[in-house]
């Protein structure tokens, strides 16, 4: 087992919140390390930005973290906690021990997938999922893509994919036009400019609001998607479906460390401190809020962890403003009830264990459903199906067991030398 140098501040997650936290902690004189299971800085939203350099905000922060000299422990997956002040992580099959004074969790978010018939076909991916695949080398030139679901992420994904040569046959947003217009009209100047730029980048792409997927068709992979606007149905032939209905916090590591999690969000105080001593949380896990809020929360957490509460407080007004924006965004893109009705009896809800909607519906709790059907007991540890079960059945799906993500068995045995002689 490798024991890394102990640091003052350990940051889990190299997305915007983690980068901002690390920058502030380092600037305040702390020894800082950042851990991420991806190969480079950026998390999901700024994935491959060091290579592509298309986001000015990302470029700014990536430059800043670069100049701090903070080390990124890349390709490193947290396994669990050895006790206060020490995490274990796995990298290239080896276990390392990460000791810290303060811990900042910036574990980001994942997409919310809502099941509908055919959603398990190869070629059906998340919106961010398809974008990540393309950034990871998936050729998309000339491929027909339908982008569907909800939220501003769809626009960014459509624009990106089109730039990379995809043929976006349709961009389908479930929120009705009226709500989106009202939201757009309420935007402050800075945001309005961004929105206009985004709109411009989408010129020529067929867009419809107030419509959503009903079934994906195909034998071994998706061949077409049927959508509805509530009145009529139609089908779009496609090679890929990039489909996401918003984001869900990655709260699991925080919960494993004993932090209080409510309604799928990590509870923090005004300096981003969790209910566990010396553990902070910033960005999406405290509540989905997008890049701007993540950067602010990250800065506040980094400053607080470095003991610079005074400086942290000065960011409170900006954070408050960002929160208001997020609230308005949530209202604009809130998910309509019809989306809860898309799954048929035979539609798979738990993909890891192939448990159908019909099999789950009769249960009254997540725990009972898990024990009886094995739903949520597969390798994704309920990350995909838990939020679905919460939306469709109202269950609270908040139990977590180590390891925080599946790891090699040997990683669970790293330091102990068995005293039992064979």
């Amino acid at each position, binding site marked *: 087992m490798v024991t890394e140098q102990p640091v003052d501040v350990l940051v889990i997650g190299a997305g915007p919140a983690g980068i901002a936290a690390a920058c502030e902690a380092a600037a305040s004189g702390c020894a800082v390390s950042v851990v991420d*299971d*991806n*190969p480079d800085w950026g998390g*999901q939203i700024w994935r*491959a930005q060091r*290579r592509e350099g298309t986001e000015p905000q990302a470029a700014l922060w990536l430059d800043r973290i670069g100049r701090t000299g903070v080390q990124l422990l890349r390709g490193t997956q947290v396994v669990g906690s050895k006790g206060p002040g020490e995490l274990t992580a796995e990298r290239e099959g080896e276990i390392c021990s990460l000791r810290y004074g303060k811990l900042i969790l910036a574990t980001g978010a*994942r*997409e919310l*997938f809502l099941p509908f018939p055919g959603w*398990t*076909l*190869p*070629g*059906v*991916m*998340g919106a*961010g*999922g*398809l*974008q*990540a*695949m*393309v950034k*990871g*080398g*998936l*050729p998309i030139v000339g491929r027909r893509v339908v982008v569907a679901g909800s939220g501003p992420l769809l626009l960014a994904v459509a624009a990106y994919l089109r730039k990379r040569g995809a043929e976006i046959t349709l961009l389908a947003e479930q929120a009705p036009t009226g709500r989106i217009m009202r939201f757009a009209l309420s935007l402050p100047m800075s945001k309005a400019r961004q929105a206009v730029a985004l709109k411009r980048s989408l010129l020529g792409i067929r867009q419809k609001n107030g419509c959503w997927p009903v079934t994906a068709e195909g034998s*071994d*992979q998706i061949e077409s998607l049927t959508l509805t606007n509530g009145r009529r149905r139609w089908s779009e032939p496609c090679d890929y479906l990039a489909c996401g209905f918003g984001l869900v916090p990655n709260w699991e590591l925080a919960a494993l460390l004993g932090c209080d999690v409510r309604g799928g969000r990590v509870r923090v105080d005004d300096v981003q401190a969790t209910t566990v001593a010396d553990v902070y949380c910033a960005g999406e896990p405290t509540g989905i809020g997008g890049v701007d809020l993540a950067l602010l929360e990250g800065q506040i957490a980094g400053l607080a962890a470095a003991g610079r509460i005074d400086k942290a407080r000065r960011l409170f007004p900006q954070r408050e403003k960002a929160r208001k924006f997020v609230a308005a965004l949530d209202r604009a893109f809130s998910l309509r009830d019809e989306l809860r009705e898309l799954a048929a009896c035979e539609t*798979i809800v738990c*993909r*890891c*264990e*192939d448990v159908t909607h019909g099999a789950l519906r009769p249960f009254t709790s997540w725990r009972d459903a898990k024990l009886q059907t094995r739903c949520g007991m*597969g*390798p*994704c540890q309920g*990350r*995909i199906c838990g939020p679905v079960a919460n939306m469709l059945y109202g269950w609270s799906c908040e139990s977590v067991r180590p390891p925080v*993500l*599946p790891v090699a068995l040997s990683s669970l045995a790293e330091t102990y030398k068995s005293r039992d002689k064979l």
Partner: protein
Amino acid sequence: MPPSITLAINGRPISVPPDCTIASALMRSGVPTFRHSVTGQPRGPLCGMGICFECRVTINGVAQQRSCQTLCGEGMEVETDGH
């Protein structure tokens, strides 16, 4: 010309650019089905970020590896579950 990486997918060689994930290499080689689910349904990547575990394949003899989280390396041998 950036250096390319050669790896084997189900025994067949394929060359990919650097920073290419195994998952993308699989799709480049025309394999939409990465594995089969518990009840035998064809599956491929969903989340693209290492959370859904639908992209699992065998890499260099080690099974159940997430291909979307693994960068292609020279000489790697990748196997899908081949039904």
